[in-house]
C-alpha cells in the first residue's frame, strides 16, 4: 500500500443473482485491490442487492475500482462519496464473572447494550461509526473478551 492510500467506502448496487458476489470479490483479488470489509444484503422490494465495501487505495486506484466495478454486467450503480453516514455493529462475548454493570455502561456509550446472558457468558452489542467501534473494542480489553465479531461497515450517502 503506497503512502497516499486512504480508506474509502464504496457502495455497489447489483442485480441479486447467482454468483454476483464472486464477480465482485474476484475483481478485487484479480486486480490486487484491498477489501477491508464487505457487507451485502438484498434491497427490500427490488431485484437488487446493496454491497458496502470498505477499501484502501490511492485516488487513481479508487477511481479504477469504481470504473472496473461499473464494467461488470450485473452492476447497476457504484457510489463512492465523501458525504456519508457510516455505521458498524460489533458483538462481544465476556465471561459472566466480569463486571456486567461496567460493561453495560460502556456498551450504552456506544449505542449498545447487553443483548444476551447465559450461565457462563454475557454478550454485549454496540452500533456506531467504525472508528468508534474500534475505540470501544480497545476499551473493553480489560474485561477479558472471549470472542469479538464485527459486522463490517454499512453506509448511506447523505
Amino acid at each position: 500500500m503506497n503512502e497516499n492510500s486512504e480508506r474509502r467506502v464504496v457502495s455497489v448496487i447489483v442485480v441479486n443473482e447467482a454468483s454476483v458476489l464472486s464477480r465482485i470479490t474476484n475483481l478485487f483479488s484479480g486486480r490486487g485491490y484491498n477489501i477491508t470489509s464487505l457487507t451485502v444484503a438484498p434491497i427490500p422490494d427490488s431485484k437488487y442487492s446493496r454491497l458496502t465495501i470498505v477499501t484502501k487505495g490511492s485516488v487513481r486506484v479508487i477511481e479504477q475500482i469504481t470504473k472496473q466495478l461499473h464494467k461488470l454486467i450485473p452492476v447497476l450503480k457504484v457510489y463512492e462519496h465523501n458525504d456519508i453516514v457510516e455505521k458498524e455493529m460489533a458483538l462481544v462475548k465476556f465471561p459472566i464473572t466480569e463486571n456486567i454493570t461496567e460493561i453495560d455502561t460502556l456498551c450504552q456509550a456506544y449505542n449498545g447494550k447487553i443483548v444476551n446472558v447465559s450461565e457462563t457468558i454475557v454478550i454485549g452489542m454496540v452500533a456506531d461509526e467504525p472508528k468508534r467501534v474500534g475505540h470501544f473494542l480497545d476499551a473493553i480489553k480489560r474485561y477479558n473478551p472471549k470472542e469479538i465479531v464485527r459486522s463490517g461497515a454499512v453506509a448511506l450517502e447523505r
Partner: protein
Amino acid sequence: MQMSGAQMVIEAFIAEGVDTVFGYPGGAIMNVYDEIYKQDGFKHILNRHEQASIHAAEGYAKASGKVGVAMITSGPGFTNAVTGLADAYMDSIPLVVVSGQVPMSLIGTDGFQEIDAIGISRPCTKHNYLVTDAADLPRILKEAFYIARTGRPGPVHVDIPKDVTAQIAEFDYSVELQLETYKPHTKGNPRQIKKAMDAIANAKRPLFYLGGGIINSNAADEVREFVHKCGIPAVETFMARGVLASDDKLLVGMLGMHGSYSSNMAMSETDLVIGLGARFDDRVTGKLSEFAKNADVIHVDIDPASISKLVNADFPIVGDLKSVVIDMLEQISKIDSDNYESWRETISNFAELHPLTYHEDTDRIKPQWVVQRVGELLGDSANISTDVGQHQMWTAQFYPFSRPRQFISSGGLGTMGFGFPAAIGVKAAMPEKTSINFTGDGSILMNVQELMTAVEKKIPVINIILNNNFLGMVRQWQTLFYDKRHSETDLSVQPDFVKLSEAFGGIGYRVTTKEEFDAALKDAVEKDVVAFIEVIVERMENVMPMVPSGGSLFNMMLLEKKETK
C-alpha cells in the same frame, strides 16, 4: 415454439446469422451436437484441440467483424479453451463460447468431466452464464451475442448442463433484451469533443496514437479522413496495424518496445497525444513517468476504465470511436495542417537518422526479408496471421499492411499457438484472400494438430515457419540481459517440417535461398492447399529497435549502423 435446449442453441445461432461454428464434441455437449448433425443453417469446423477452436473463432471474428462462435464440452474440453478465452478477453474480440456441463443433479459432486467452468472463466470473459433452466436460454443467448459485440467487445461464455440441453421449453427469440445494468456509451460528450478539437488546433507537435479500438469500431475510414485533413503524423500500436496504409505519408510507424525509432521519438517529443482506441499498454509506453512527458493527452475510448488507468487523460472522451471521430470531423475547420509542417519535418528527420531496416550481412536468409518479400509478392491479396515471438514483431514491423482486419495476431496475451488456428478462422471468414500464418519453429508446434483440421476442411492456410532453431524472442532476451545463458531455448532438435505437413496430407517446402523461397510461395499459392514453408533463417538475428522492459521509449537499443545495404 416448444423445443429442447439443444435445439434452442441451433435456432439462436441461425437467428444471429452465424454461418460457421468451431468446436469439438464430448459427453456433456452431445445433445447439441446431435442437433448440429440434423441442421444445415451453419457449418461446423472440427478443430483437433479446443484451444484451437477458440483461436479459430477469434481469427474468424477479427477478419469478419462478426461474433465468433465456438462450442466445447465440459471438464477438459472447457479447460483447454481457457487460454483462448483469455486471449480474446485481452484483445477485445467478440466471441460466444458455449460449453457443456454435467447435469444439474451432478453439479458439485465432482462428477466425471465436471469443473466449475463459470468460476474459471469469470476473470477472462466479459460476462458468463450458467444456464439452469431451458426457459432462460433464448434470453441468455441473445444477451450473450449482444454483450459480446457491443461496447468494448469481448468473449461471453455460456455453460449449459446436459439435462438443460434436453429440457423442453418455449423458444421465442424475439424477446426484448432488458439489460438495465448494461448500457454501453456511444456518443461522446460534445463539450469534451470541442475542448479536444481546440487543444489540437493549439498544439504545435500533436501526434495521433492509433489503437485497435479503431478496428473494433469499424472506424478506419473515418480515422484516415481525420488524420489526412489534420495533416498530423500518426503512430500505430501493434493492434492498429493496417488502420493507415503502410505507404501513408503521415504514418510514422509502430511504436513501443519494438517500435521504430521515429515513432518512439515522436511520442517522446509530442506536446499533444491524440489517443484513439488505444490503452497505453506497458509494451507501448515503456517507463510511464517518461512517456510523452511534455504532452497533454486526449483519450477517446469506449471503455471508461481504460481512460486515466495508466496515463492521465487531460481530455477524456468516452464513446464509440466512429461516432466521436465523425463529431470531431465536423469541427475540422479549426485545424490548419500547415501549422504542423516543421513538426512533420522533425519526424521525417528521425526516420532518416534511424530508418526501420536490417542488414543483409550473412549467408542465411534474414527473417525480415521473408516478411518483406511476402509483402511484395502478395501485398493486399493476403490476410496475415502470426504466432508469438520474434517473427510476430518482424511481421508487424515489415509487412506492408494496407487495410484494417488484414493483420490478425495475439497482442495482449501473447499466445504461442494462436497463429495457425486463427489463420484457419480467417480463411473461413474471407476465402477470397490468401491466408498466411507467419510462425516460428517454437510456436508452430503448439497447435500443429490443426494441420488435420485445415486438410480435412480444405482450408488452405500457408504457414511460413521462420526457423532459427531457437525460441527466438526468449533467446534474444537471454543474449541481451542474461549474459548469453540460453537456458532451454535451443531448439536444435526438430521434426522434419516437410514430412510433418505431408503426414497430415498437406504439402511442405524447406528453403534456404531467396530463389527457393519465391518458388515455394508461388507454388503454394497456386496449389491452394495447406502448406508449410520452412525457411532456414539467420539464427542470432535480434528484433531491433528494442526498448528494454521498463525503460524509456527514447532509450532504444538500435540496429548497428553499417555501410552495406
